[in-house]
């Protein structure tokens, strides 16, 4: 009878159709996948199921040994070592249930064997009915634990990716609590707290700190609320910050299976990128303007040549071979030649610029006397200086031997002189040369209108011509850029000293190191 069961009672308890079954309570508890034991009021085991017996065998107890009669509480108390704390908790918990202080007790514990980690839940509940005692279940939860660990690992990887992002990331839960913020975000908004302290804070507190970092906190706050309200993703919103920088903000409302699951903000500092873009735009505009000036400068001499050749032709046609107007033809040819030379100079400048841009400015160095070269250039420009009524003052040291590209340095000197003639006619010009401190120092000083500090910066750049000169003087404004490149290719320097109204002094210094060039 101990094994018997009244089917009617079972039916009344469970309400199921079991009329055809011969069932004992042990059949039922043996079928459980949990290890179950029934304890009497003292904690002695009075029944165990098949799973319990199997579990006991797996834990090294002999197959024949029976746990029946063993006091489970003592067993718990005797457990020492690795799981002593768990065993103690189990002892106290089960005792409480047996003493009727608690209806149930649950404890999660680990039992790791070599090569396998296993987790269990111990569940003790008061035995219902007349008999005092308890039912103890051991439920294996290893699979759940592994799944949880895998999920935690996934989350950890996910957050470590967000943490490593070079742009700021802020993850806010559906309830408006911060779930995650990375270091980049804290840096962008000068948040002093470490990112790991932020999760759990209400995002409104964070929002306040972030808001004040914007140049227009009111507008920024309103916009952020609007974005949250609208819940539409925004990829690239440029915002001006109080620290003078420009950030790019992205907003992504997160959805899981169509339901709101929080929001993701991403913020990036694009100040540098913006600056590069602006620089590029300025450079392109300067180049376009240069192209327009260059076209005009090239077109002008061509137009003049065209006019003059048309005129020559007209003169030749109307005069006939007998009475050629020699004087006028010769004069026309002279001007045509001058214009052609002018075109050639412009084209040479353009070629030099393209050579410099391509890094193909090569030097043919030879050892020469810089004094002689300067005298040569001055002699060549003498007529121009006289025409421009510019008295020349020379202060030239003799015998300055230097290894330079004669033609290129000639080009630099010619450029400096013709600039002076262009901009400072009618005023004295001083040209100096001195060898001192390992360098040759050439100075060309005019007494023209001078150049403002702002324009001085642009003077040596490509495609720039000081605004003041753009009106009266033609040319591509490439001369000083080319000169600077030539001087720097010689490891020298070119500088300007000038104040508006008091002339300009251009100083070229070239290293004198000869040894390298004399074999």
């Amino acid at each position: 009878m101990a094994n018997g069961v009244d089917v009617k009672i079972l039916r009344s308890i469970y309400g199921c159709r079991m009329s055809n079954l011969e069932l004992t309570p042990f059949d039922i508890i043996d079928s459980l996948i949990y290890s179950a034991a029934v304890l009497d009021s003292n904690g002695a085991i009075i029944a165990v199921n098949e799973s319990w017996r199997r579990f006991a065998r797996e834990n090294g107890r002999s197959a024949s040994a029976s746990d029946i009669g063993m006091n489970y509480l003592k067993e718990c108390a005797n457990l020492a070592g690795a799981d002593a704390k768990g065993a103690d908790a189990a002892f106290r918990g089960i005792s409480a249930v047996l003493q009727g202080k608690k209806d149930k007790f649950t404890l999660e514990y680990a039992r790791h064997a070599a090569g396998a980690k296993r987790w269990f839940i111990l569940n003790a509940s008061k035995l219902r009915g007349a008999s005092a005692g308890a039912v103890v279940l051991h439920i294996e939860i290893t699979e759940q634990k592994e799944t949880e660990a895998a999920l935690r690992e996934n989350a950890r990887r996910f957050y470590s990716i967000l943490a490593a992002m070079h742009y700021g990331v802020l993850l806010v839960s559906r309830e408006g609590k911060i779930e995650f913020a990375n270091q980049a975000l804290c840096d962008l908004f000068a948040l002093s707290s470490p990112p790991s302290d932020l999760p759990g804070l209400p995002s409104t507190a964070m929002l306040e700190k972030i808001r004040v970092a914007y140049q227009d906190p009111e507008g920024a706050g309103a916009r952020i609320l609007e974005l949250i309200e609208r819940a539409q993703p925004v990829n690239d919103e440029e915002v001006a910050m109080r620290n003078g920088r420009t950030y790019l903000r992205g907003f992504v409302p997160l959805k899981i299976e169509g339901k709101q699951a929080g929001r993701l903000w991403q913020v990036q500092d694009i100040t540098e990128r913006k600056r590069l873009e602006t620089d590029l735009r300025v450079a392109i505009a300067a180049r376009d303007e240069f192209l327009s000036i260059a076209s005009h400068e090239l077109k002008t001499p061509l137009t003049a040549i065209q006019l003059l050749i048309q005129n020559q032709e007209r003169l030749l046609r109307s005069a006939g071979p007998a009475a050629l107007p020699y004087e006028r033809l010769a004069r026309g040819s002279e001007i045509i030649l001058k214009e052609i030379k002018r075109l050639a100079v412009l084209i040479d400048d353009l070629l030099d610029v393209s050579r410099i841009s391509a890094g193909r400015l090569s030097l043919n160095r030879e050892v020469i006397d810089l004094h002689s070269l300067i005298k040569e250039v001055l002699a060549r420009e003498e007529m121009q200086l006289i025409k421009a009524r510019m008295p020349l003052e020379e202060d030239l040291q003799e015998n300055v031997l230097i290894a330079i590209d004669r033609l290129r340095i000639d080009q630099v000197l010619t450029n400096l002189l013709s600039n002076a003639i262009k901009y400072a006619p009618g005023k004295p010009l001083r040209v100096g040369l001195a060898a001192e401190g390992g360098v040759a120092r050439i100075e060309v000083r005019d007494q023209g209108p001078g150049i403002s500090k702002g324009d001085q910066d642009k003077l040596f750049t490509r495609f720039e011509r000081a605004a003041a000169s753009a009106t009266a003087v033609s040319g591509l404004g490439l001369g000083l850029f080319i000169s600077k490149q030539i001087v720097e290719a010689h490891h020298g320097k070119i500088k300007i000293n000038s104040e508006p109204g008091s002339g300009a002094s251009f100083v070229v210094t070239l290293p004198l190191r000869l040894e390298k060039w004399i074999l």
Partner: protein
Amino acid sequence: MSKGPILLVEDDESIREALAEILQGEGFVVLSAENGYEALEILRRQTTAPRWILMDIAMPQMSGVECIEKLRENLKWAKIPVTLLSAGARAGDQAKLQGVAFIKKPVDIDVLLAAAEERCR
């Protein structure tokens, strides 16, 4: 027998020089100015007014149109015939440019010389 004088106002040195050379070769006296300001300066200094003003329309300092406005403010200069050198038709300035002749660029020498002869006859 010299003809003119003609006041030539052109900012591009090459073209100014070429036009002056061509006109002088035909016996015209040519006064050259780089821009409107210089042209007005020459007019102020000149005792005999030029017979004709040949002027580039686009100049960096004072444009041809601005210069014409200045000329019209002065009774002595208002009647000097003006011809503008222009690369194309310019809308918008029509009212201001009433009575002003145009020579289209690129300049045809025969047209230029015919106009010069006509104005300085």
